[in-house]
């Protein structure tokens, strides 16, 4: 599977059977999903499941065509292998064209939830909405067309705390009209001529080193790296659930739109805090980025260099003022590429993940004091918000509004 990843070096994107794929950790995945599941007055579960079905259908269909896979057994086996490769866990299909049951072991969402929240709270509802959509998409792409199957999780480890999860899949009484993925979306034609940053960090060298890391699912279908559970997710799954959710908020209660946006920004902030914090304490960081670090502002540049290695597009700090502010360009951000392929225009800057992620890097360096290798736990994260001087961010230029690239300011 690893050999099917296509790195677009100029745009710093990673494609997988014509879908942009990006790394995110379980902190991000869980917080974003929780935000969408939370409102009782929105069918968030359907947003999550249907979006997964749509995006993974496109991915699987392309994979089957590209690899020339024609038999049902081979298609199901490939879908299961791909699921594990991407870090979602292990699927065992016991299905025919009429439907059936699927076992999900070592589920990313269920295991991640138990690890992050399991000691503190109980869960009463299943959590594997993305896997439910993936299973329906697999049968769609194997036997029929998009929207033919529906799936439901009937047992979930996040609830039972033992065994494995089970997903039932059946043919829908009437095929649903679903919307396939926009795939790579509206890409930038060529990289923007951004000024070279004043730093000893070589962004391209960091990118090459990280792209060569063999980050793929292990024998449990998990990507355990940097003290978090990673997934290599199609970016359009995140994009679709994020923007559909905000569309629903706008439609049903516009007064709460701002809160939904704030929580999505926070998913970006918490993601960067844990993932980047752990990366910056890792041996890989010491080996690859460490020799390039001369000043504290280099740590910020190093983090943005890592960000542009994760499939998120070309992130580049334009100016970093020690412990004061930073200005960052994202040329060809994955959120914007989707947005411009799906919506006519934006009224306001709409890269919500990046709006949370950009200040988070400043917070990791200057408020988390990452150079001292603190223990990155909930207590430290909680303390960040109790002190003065928390960095906050804003998107000051937006490609989705007609600017040539997106630009963020954190202070």
């Amino acid at each position: 599977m690893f050999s099917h990843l296509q790195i677009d070096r100029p745009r710093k994107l990673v494609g997988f059977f014509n879908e942009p794929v990006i790394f995110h950790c379980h902190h991000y995945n869980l917080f974003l999903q929780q935000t969408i599941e939370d409102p009782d007055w929105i069918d968030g579960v359907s947003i999550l499941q249907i979006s997964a079905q749509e995006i993974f259908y496109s991915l699987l269909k392309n994979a089957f065509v590209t690899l020339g896979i024609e038999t049902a057994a081979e298609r199901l086996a490939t879908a299961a292998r791909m699921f594990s490769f991407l870090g979602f866990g292990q699927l065992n299909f016991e299905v025919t064209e009429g439907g059936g049951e699927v076992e999900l072991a070592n589920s990313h969402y269920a295991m991640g939830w138990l690890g992050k929240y399991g000691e503190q709270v109980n869960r009463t509802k299943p959590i594997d909405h993305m896997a439910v959509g993936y299973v329906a998409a697999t049968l769609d792409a194997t036997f029929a067309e998009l929207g033919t199957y529906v799936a439901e999780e009937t047992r979930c480890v996040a609830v039972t705390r033992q065994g494995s999860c089970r997903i039932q899949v059946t043919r829908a009484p009437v095929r649903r009209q679903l919307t396939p993925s926009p795939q790579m979306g509206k890409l930038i034609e060529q990289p923007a001529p951004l000024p070279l940053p004043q730093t000893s960090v070589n962004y391209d060298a960091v990118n090459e080193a990280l792209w060569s890391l063999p980050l793929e699912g292990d024998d449990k279908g998990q990507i355990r790296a940097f003290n978090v559970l990673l997934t290599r997710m199609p970016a359009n799954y995140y994009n679709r659930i994020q923007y559909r959710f905000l569309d629903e908020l706008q439609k049903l209660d516009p007064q709460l739109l701002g809160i939904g946006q704030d929580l999505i920004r926070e998913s970006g902030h918490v993601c960067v805090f844990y993932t980047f914090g752990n990366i910056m304490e890792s041996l890989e960081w010491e080996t690859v980025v460490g020799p390039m670090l001369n000043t504290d502002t280099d740590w910020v540049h190093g983090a943005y260099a890592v960000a542009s290695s994760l499939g998120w597009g070309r992130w580049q700090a334009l100016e970093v003022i020690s412990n004061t502010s930073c200005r960052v360009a994202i040329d060809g951000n994955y959120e914007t590429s989707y947005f411009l392929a799906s919506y006519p225009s934006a009224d306001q800057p709409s890269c919500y993940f990046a709006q949370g992620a950009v200040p988070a890097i400043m917070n990791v360096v200057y408020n988390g004091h990452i150079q001292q290798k603190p223990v990155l736990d909930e207590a430290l994260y909680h303390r960040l918000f109790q002190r003065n001087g928390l960095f906050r961010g804003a998107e000051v230029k937006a490609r989705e509004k007609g600017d040539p690239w997106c630009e963020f300011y954190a202070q």
Partner: protein
Amino acid sequence: MEKAALDSLGTYASDLLRANNRVCQVVGSASEADYLLAGSAEVRLVIKAFSKTPYFVLLLTKSSTNLKLVLERINAILVDGKPLLPPVQDQAVSTAKLLLNYARRYAPDPNFVTLRLSLKTGLNRERLEKGELNEQEVRILYKAVADILGTERLPIALP
């Protein structure tokens, strides 16, 4: 002993503690109220309040039981039990505020729990933070807090 009898015992012990606190105020004692003893020739009731809380320990023993051992046991309960006490329902604080405080204390991601609750319930964030909710909204908030914590009941009484 029947549950009803235990409940009565608790109520009377509470009355005794309250009376003793007044006694202390009248005699001008600045220090904390001491152990209270009550009972008969057969049974002895030993009561001691957790300081600065409305909670207390009540031990019912035979009157022949070594009092020193009883006091040692009560002291141990006072030390070990204090961190486990549920939050006090202050009459001066609205139920909505109590629910919000409870969520901030026990829910994951405490910095964002108010935003989550606002989104979950559809209730305006400012009104939520001020605790100015009507009875039906308080019930909605109660359910949302319980849901976030994965439980059906919270140790906070609804109005």
